[in-house]
């Protein structure tokens, strides 16, 4: 059994689908933060069989967790302060996703315009459908892809 020490202030992202932690690491731009991050892959889980866990030691306000809702809203977000879990955040689908997914429509202006942000808007919350802000091409959230 691998032991990783607790964190004083930050987040523990639990119940990440096995294999998804590195994507989340990049999408949350953790590589750009100067903080301690533990990536635990394929941890045993009663509920999921195996799962990934991310532990991030950073000020609470440093992370934009909206994107997690898009990737997988079943992830548990534990907010840690003074070595204690102070909050379990509920994840929602974000209204807008910026520069996380790319429009695949070759006729879309995003395919040629210099440094244009890739923006997707939530157009159908029930069916988790996002559409490109520019060409309205559909993109389903990764879990339902």
């Amino acid at each position, binding site marked *: 059994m691998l032991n990783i020490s607790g964190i004083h202030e930050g987040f523990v992202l639990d119940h990440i689908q096995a294999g998804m932690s590195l994507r989340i690491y990049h999408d949350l731009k953790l590589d750009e933060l100067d903080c301690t991050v533990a990536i635990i892959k394929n941890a045993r889980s009663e509920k999921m069989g195996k799962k990934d866990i991310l532990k991030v030691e950073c000020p609470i306000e440093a992370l934009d967790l909206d994107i997690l809702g898009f990737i997988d809203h079943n992830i548990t977000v534990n907010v840690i302060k003074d070595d204690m879990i102070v909050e379990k955040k509920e994840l929602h689908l974000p209204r807008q996703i910026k520069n996380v997914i790319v429009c695949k429509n070759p*006729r879309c*202006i995003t395919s040629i*315009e210099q440094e*244009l942000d890739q923006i997707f808007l939530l157009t159908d919350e029930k069916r988790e459908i996002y559409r490109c*802000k*520019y060409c309205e091409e559909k993109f389903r959230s990764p879990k339902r892809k």
Partner: protein
Amino acid sequence: MRHLMSPLDFSVEELDALLDLANDIEAHPQKYAHACAGKKLATCFYEPSTRTRLSFEAAMLNLGGSVLGFSSADSSSAAKGESVSDTIRVISCYADICAMRHPKEGAPLVASQKSLIPVINAGDGGHQHPTQTLTDLLTIRSLRGELGNLTIGLCGDLKFGRTVHSLINALIRYPGIRFVLISPEELRIPSYIREDVLTANGIPFTEMERLEDAMADLDILYMTRVQRERFFNEEDYVRLKDFYILTKSKMALAKKDMLVLHPLPRVNEISVEVDDDPRAAYFRQAQYGVYVRMALILTLLEITVD
């Protein structure tokens, strides 16, 4: 400052005001002859579209304004690799309003985000062509008196025809609308229109393959072109093509006050023998296209004429 990207950018009330203004322009053209004196319209057409561009230019000239622009990407700075964002920033220094056509979907929206002047989407790929929809709505309202309580037949290529999709989206906002969707199996309306728009909003519609079968019920017949290259095989094309050619004999099955609309250009889907029928409204539709663009330019420039 407002732009026009999609026909649904205007509420029903705003649309009514726009169409009222277009009708007033039609009735009193002299009143508006100098409304845009000193103003310039830039027509930025990255792909050729003679009719739409000339319609915009005629609209601005009728308002006493001037026009400048380009009519293909080859003759613009796009050929040198300039982005849409940069182009519109420069055009903003030259003109007061811009009509943009671009083969890439969403290009006018990108322009509107950086523009200092109102931008009108004059067609972006297969995505939106809002001034065509405004033209269709003005034609129907002017010639029928209202936009509700109509049975509208949409005939031809319902799968790829963006004008048809836009028109459906615009008309479902009015009461008593019923659609008859007439197309070959291969070119039926896409499911996202059938389910997400028609069924989801409880709009009655029927789908059929033969134009003759629909004619008697229709108040409006909106024709579009069935292109040979859309068919999977030649046999189906030959079998079906005549179903979608409007002739005098098919017109004989229609109501006396039915209207025939077409976004033009017509290739062969309406026989020229129908042109003299008083119910053929497609050339009047092109005239309404100028009036509605005049009303749009005035509205976006926030110019009022007493």
